[in-house]
């Protein structure tokens, strides 16, 4: 029941909208089947399957709107949910920022559904965990990991003729390997559309190698270092920065994207000229739903930063009207253009530096400069003359991604990572003068 076909979904949406007596109405039907398995201390701890399907209906009277949701779809239920949305709309205060319900949209075609993920069985999940645990036991390390897979659909429609349907699959696997004495730790991730391309054993091997190599870490003085940040180390910082690409906050003067004296920094060269970020729902590496969640506006390929210049900030329809700007919906994926080198090649070309496998517990310190703090984790190594020399203790960093993206020395091949609930393609970066402010004893 949770996954409906395009025609089944359309039938329900058409029917519920027919019950509408409001000026305008819109509806979103979304369903998913999510499976998971979790293990720790080399033993499976929990596993589960979650099914869900829900219809959300919004009724509009001018600037008043009401939303009601329901998870049953008989005619009586569909009428009931629409009536409830209408009642809520009549009772709700006017929202001066409400924009008209959208009419038909032309959505790009997205190929983000893989049968191997859709057909995954509990036995396959158990085997995925077992492959990781067996690899850990062989190397005498302790595994803790989590696999979550999902098949999902979303369908949207409005009383003004809009309709869209999108089906997707995804699987995300993360694993932490720790040596038995707790002195070494490694982590790895695999984020895919097609479960058939996931190999939890080989992903686990990456984490095991890091755990073993990171033992007996030496302390280096905090300070500014040339660093090679692997994709999962980069994503934590750029994820924060891109979440601040908002035109309204910038225009209101409360963002690192605000311009002194008023306005925003679109058109300014703020980054190294190689920096290029864009979103594209049809990207084959990170396919994504082709409309915005809030109002079903179509998503298209959008440059955020190109040649180091700020090209776009997300701008909703209300703010676009107020600021006489273009509507730019919030994206569902992110792609950072990288280079053609592997992490090994980046290391080979480094005289002195630090390899950072992963960053952790990143928080905003100052939104004015986008200064972030966080820590390195699960494999931090000193590089000398093109080789990893020895593991080093973890550092706390205090750094702005804006500064980091001005100090790029080189870039690696982008890899798919999970970022802020969406998927992103992010390269490893070699960056000079990265600021480590203190040491951490954590392993």
């Amino acid at each position, binding site marked *: 029941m949770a996954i409906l076909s395009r025609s089944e979904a359309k039938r329900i949406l058409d029917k519920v909208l027919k019950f509408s007596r409001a000026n305008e109405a819109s509806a979103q039907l979304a369903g*998913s089947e*999510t499976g998971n398995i*979790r293990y*720790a*201390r080399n*033993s499976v701890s*929990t*596993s589960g*399957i*979650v*099914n*869900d399907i*829900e219809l*959300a209906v919004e009724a509009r009277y001018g600037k008043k709107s009401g*939303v*009601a*949701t329901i*998870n049953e779809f008989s005619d009586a239920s569909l009428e009931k949910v629409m009536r409830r949305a209408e009642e*809520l709309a009549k*009772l*709700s*205060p006017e*929202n001066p920022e409400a924009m008209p319900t959208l009419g038909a949209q032309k959505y790009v075609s997205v190929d983000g559904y893989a049968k191997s993920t859709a057909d995954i069985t509990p036995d396959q999940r158990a085997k995925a965990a077992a492959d990781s645990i067996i690899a850990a036991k062989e190397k005498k390390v302790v595994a*803790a990991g*989590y696999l*979550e897979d999902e098949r999902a659909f979303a369908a949207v429609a409005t009383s003004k003729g809009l309709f869209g349907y999108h089906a997707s699959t995804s699987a995300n696997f*993360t694993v*932490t390997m*720790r040596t038995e004495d*707790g002195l070494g730790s490694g982590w790895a991730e695999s984020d895919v559309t097609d479960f058939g391309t996931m190999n939890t054993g080989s992903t686990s091997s990456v984490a095991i190698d890091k755990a073993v190599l990171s033992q007996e870490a030496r302390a280096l003085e905090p300070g500014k270092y040339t660093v090679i940040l692997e994709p999962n180390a980069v994503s934590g910082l750029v994820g*924060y920065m891109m*979440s601040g690409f908002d035109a309204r906050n910038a225009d*209101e*003067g*409360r*963002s690192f994207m*605000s*311009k*002194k004296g008023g306005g925003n920094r679109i058109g300014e060269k*703020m980054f190294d000229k190689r920096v290029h970020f864009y979103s594209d729902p049809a990207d084959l590496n990170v396919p994504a739903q082709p409309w915005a969640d809030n109002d079903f506006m179509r998503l298209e390929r959008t440059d955020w930063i190109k040649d180091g210049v700020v090209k776009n900030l997300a701008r909703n329809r209300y703010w676009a009207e107020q600021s006489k700007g273009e509507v730019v919906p919030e994206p569902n994926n992110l792609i950072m253009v990288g280079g053609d080198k592997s992490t090994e090649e980046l290391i080979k070309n480094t005289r002195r530096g630090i390899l950072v496998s992963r960053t952790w517990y990143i*928080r*905003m*310190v*100052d*939104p*004015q*400069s986008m*200064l972030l*703090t966080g820590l390195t*984790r699960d494999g931090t190594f000193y590089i000398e003359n093109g080789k990893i020399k020895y593991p080093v203790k973890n550092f*706390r960093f*205090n750094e*702005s991604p804006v*500064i980091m993206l*001005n100090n790029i020395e080189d870039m690696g091949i982008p890899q798919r990572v999970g970022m802020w609930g969406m998927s992103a393609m992010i390269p490893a970066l070699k960056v000079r003068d990265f600021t480590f*402010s*203190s*040491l951490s*004893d*954590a392993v």
Partner: protein
Amino acid sequence: MERRKFLKIAGVGSSGLLLPLQGVQVSAEQLLNEGMHSSHKRHLADVVLNTARKAGASYTDVRIGRYLNQYVMTRETNVENIVNTESLGAGIRVIANGTWGFAATNDLTADGVARAARQAVAVAKANAKYQTEPVRLAPVKGIGEVSWQTPIQKNALQVPISEKVDFLMDVNNGALKAGASYIQSSLYLVNEQKYFASSDGSYIDQDIHRLWAPMQVTAVDKKSGVFKTRNGLSDPVGRGYEYLAGHKKDKIRGQTTLYKASYDMAEDAMLAAEQAKAKLSAKSIDPGKYDLVLEPSHLCLTIHESVGHPLELDRVLGYEANYAGTSFATLDKWRSGKFQYGSDKVTLFADKVQPGSLGAVAYDDEGVKTKRWDLVKDGVLVNYQATRDQVHMIDQKESHGCSYGDSWSSVQFQRMPNVSLAPGEEKYSAKDMIRDVEKGIYIVGRGSYSIDQQRYNFQFGGQLFYEIKNGEIVGQVEDVAYQSNTQEFWNACSAICDSSDYRLGGTFFDGKGQPSQVSAVSHGCSTTRFDKINVINTKRKIS
């Protein structure tokens, strides 16, 4: 079972808050409907207990839950969103073949819950293949039928939405009049109606209420391009709508007004506007070592991160290694009986009983009567936070009552109880404390926070910073963050104010587990001094 959904709330200084949404969106009136009668829940519970036992369970518990949330969100003169949700169902946990199994259903018929009970047993039997050590449960004596309610005076869900909107609009208008450029303010209301029954012979009906009224005020100087924010100083509480009465007796006047058992949000909003503006031209701190005087609305979060989390037994044992992390407070340190977590002034206790706290319940989610116990006594690590299936690992026979599941559809597991710092025994006020500091900073309110995965190294900011020179506050400062190591920090604790200054702070949406679950927890303390802590200056220039 239902999928977890989130509502994204925009905010400055963070990427925005993700509010968990449970169940379906309904009208505010529906939140006031009487739930299922206790006798019917008892009937369903007995169906579950009998079915599971027949299917081979050696232990069973069932939580029949109705979870109600109401979120009212505003900015400046507009209501941004009002969301009411209701989630109803039953979660069944069993032990069969020495292994846990869990299943949940929203089909609350006798057939529906019996089916889920059988499913839970089947899951346990299937997972038993991978189990290396059978579950060992600390004994709990069944207590028959009991009920408990958060001691509220006014059920916030019964207050009309229009009244809440008017209340927030007054708050916002006050801040705008006082010179705020922008303000976002919200009310988050939670009611958990939980019926727990277990094969131990307990039938526990609890009605739990929580409330949070956060806000963020922003001041912008467009000419210089500088902007500053000041968040509200309220704390999430286990209280009713009476918390928003802002009684005079609950106010502590000082550099800013601080609040005890009730909160004057309108007053705090006006103060926030003035203070945010003052931040625009405040002196930037000189980095170095300072004696820190930490006010409870700030220190509560430091306690949460540097004491609450590292003493969760599941983290210590490695069950959270892949997500939240592990802990520096390992079993060998605890077993030594000599691990100096803090100075001899430091006693940190856990509880789920303090009135007005977020953690207060009569029984936890596996039917254990709640209590208070010490974690750190006179500076020495003495205990952890544990559940029924964990206490045997620390050679104890009685569960601490730390089990919680954030929904009927989430399996319950070990969650942090309230963790608090015992007040000083000698009469000593915050003013006395400031008077005794030569070079220091007085910090109020929660700001940026980050700590490593074993809880050694941390960095905290705040909302308001006041420089202290020779026993006097000399002015507001900015760009302050302090860095320390948990053990060094608590050993640098040199003075704690007395119980008249003690109050509760807390966190409403603490995340843990995979799939992630939220929980709400309070931390009590009095204003406390920490000597010679490293303070950094956080100001940076981007071109």
